[in-house]
């Protein structure tokens, strides 16, 4: 199986470790991973801030880069970028058509939409694995990010994966389904409310006694993690890919 890694611009620029973890994990599971160098950004920030027209060329570009028949699937370690492609690209195509701009965009995105998967979804649904052979001797709590939870419907896929990790103790996060307050430009435009939401999320994480808070989206983790260091919390933010990529050999070496 040949897979294109859609890392997202945020991960590429700020969290390369997550990308390296995904490559390591998928390779370990026998997947042939490619990173198309022409990839950039899915256009989520543009779209969500009200710049739908500016997001359109990015959707086309994404489809050009990832639509190739050479890939059986496109995998991304970001729930919100995955939701952007799967849920919003088709909608953008329909809107463009309704506005009398033809079906070009809808046609362009059509091949790539159904084969784009968020990482945990890909592991469980496509590869059919829940035990990825990972070892992570820490107490972990899981925050289901809003787009993963509601737009993609990841449900218990991430926690099934985590439960199968050796050495890992999963503890439940109170108020897990509440938004952490990031929301892209929301964090800047409504900074006070966003910060209050972030602080509550961090306090909930703290109350679990976990060492690590994990999620399937670095954007949310950036907001939560930034709040954690400011509030001097002992909990660390870690992307789920990095947990799933860890192995016993590494830990002992």
């Amino acid at each position: 199986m040949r897979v294109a890694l859609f890392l997202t611009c945020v991960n590429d620029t700020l969290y390369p470790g997550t990308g390296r973890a995904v490559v390591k994990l998928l390779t370990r599971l026998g997947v042939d991973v490619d990173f198309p160098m022409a990839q950039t950004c899915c256009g989520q920030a543009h779209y969500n801030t009200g710049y739908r027209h500016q997001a359109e060329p990015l959707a086309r570009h994404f489809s050009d880069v990832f639509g190739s028949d050479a890939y059986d699937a496109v995998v991304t370690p970001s729930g919100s970028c995955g939701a952007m492609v799967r849920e919003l690209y088709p909608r953008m195509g329909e809107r463009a058509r309704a506005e009398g701009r033809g079906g070009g965009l809808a046609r362009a995105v059509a091949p790539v939409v159904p084969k784009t998967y968020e990482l945990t979804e890909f592991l469980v649904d496509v590869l059919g694995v829940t035990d990825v052979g990972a070892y992570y001797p820490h107490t972990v709590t899981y925050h289901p990010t809003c787009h993963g939870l509601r737009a993609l419907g990841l449900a218990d896929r991430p926690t099934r994966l985590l439960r199968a990790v050796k050495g890992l103790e999963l503890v439940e996060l109170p108020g897990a389904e509440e938004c952490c307050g990031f929301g892209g430009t929301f964090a800047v435009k409504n900074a006070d409310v966003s910060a209050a939401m972030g602080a509550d999320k961090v306090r909930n994480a703290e109350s679990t006694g976990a060492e690590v808070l994990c999620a399937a989206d670095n954007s949310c983790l950036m907001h939560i993690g930034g709040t954690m260091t400011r509030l001097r919390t002992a909990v660390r933010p870690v992307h789920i890919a990095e947990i799933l990529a860890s192995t016993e050999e590494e830990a002992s070496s």
Partner: protein
Amino acid sequence: MSGGTFVGMPAFPAAAREAVGNTTLRANLRHATHTIRDKRARAVAELSDWDRLREAGKRIKDHTLRHLDRYLVQLEESVERAGGTVHWAADAEEANRIVAGLVRATGETEVVKVKSMATQEIGLNEALEAEGIRAYETDLAELIVQLGHDRPSHILVPAIHRNRGEIRDIFREEMAGWGRPAPDGLTDTPAELAEAARLHLREKFLRAKVGISGANFMVAETGTLVVVESEGNGRMCLTLPETLISVVGIEKVVPAWRDLEVFLQTLPRSSTAERMNPYTSMWTGTTDEDGPSTFHLVLLDNGRTDTLADEVGRQALRCIRCSACLNVCPVYERAGGHAYGSVYPGPIGAILSPQLRGTGSEIDASLPYASSLCGACYEVCPVAIDIPEVLVHLRERVVQGGEATRGGNRVTLKPAKGHAAERAAMRAAGLAFARPGALRAGQRLASRTRRLHPRALPGPGRAWSATRDLPEVPVEPFRDWWQRTRGGGGGSGDDRTTEGNGR
């Protein structure tokens, strides 16, 4: 709108900042919304066919909206056949004029009101006051708001922002000025507070000759109006006066009696987490020797047909005002209802107000941004309004302008002020992202200068770094690592191929 009630509201972020800093308010809101949200989830889980009820509600409303003209004419005929009189009001001013005229014609100077958001939307109380007519709110929460010289902050629990102690103080200080004073030594126990309100209100019910109401539903087929409530005060208001005037938004019509079957299940469960609401009052025109002998229905547009003209935004008119979206909204929970500058707060307010009123004012232009797009509101909405979709659609209207309908005419809106810098930044980012080479150059520059990056930002970014630390820029972006370790052996070529493809 609202006859001055909400005029002068600051934009959402500023109003929210004040609320976030008010710990009593936050505690009151948190307690109330969390309690009701858990109860709602349980009440909904009891029904095995919830998804189908939700879909049915959505379809009934969409169908009605698509043929709204036809159903409104049918409703008018049915109401008049049953002995009522129908009035059409295009906007708040016209509605207020009609109602004031009707009250004046009775020779009365006092009216009792049962909870009606439409009359708050148009600022009826203030308009009547200007005509020398005093309107008494009879819903308990509305009474608290009115006595407290306050504004409602929740659709269903307008005084949600008050706790028992505050309510006792308001009753003690204000009741005497409006009628029967609060009993001596009133405490803050719920039973005593309810009894004080009951005695105060009873006197009004028995005296008033004119009642004013809203309605949750209007049935086109029969001309029946429906009010659902919990206290029974509404029923007093609807049955004791000689004249009843109902002011109702045109979107509240449903085609047939049997359509109520759906909403009378979804509304109480979504709003108060009850299987059935305690009082459901229905009236059809007038009946000899029973209830009011004169009935007027004022059908209110006030921006609704403009909203209907918008393909994406019109779904907001499906709303049955259950308030479930408010109770799950993390932004509402912290910002409070007043920050939304309207009688419609929370997620539904954030999409309804900028459509009913237009995006011209500062507060209305800021409301589509009063959400992190977490989607919790859409998930609970019993008529499946995709609130995040409409929020993003309205953001587009704010930042880009575009076609909209105002006052029945197609107009081209200019982008709202204050977004020029953002627009430029989005355009620049769009250009960079369309050319991977540019993105890579930016990343390299960031990596090379990583020691110089502050962990706090200047300018508009300060809002971020005031409460959160920024991540450190890594030594090497992923794509450089990939190329270094894999030698750029990817199947889709390097960045130059795409750069040259003409976009």
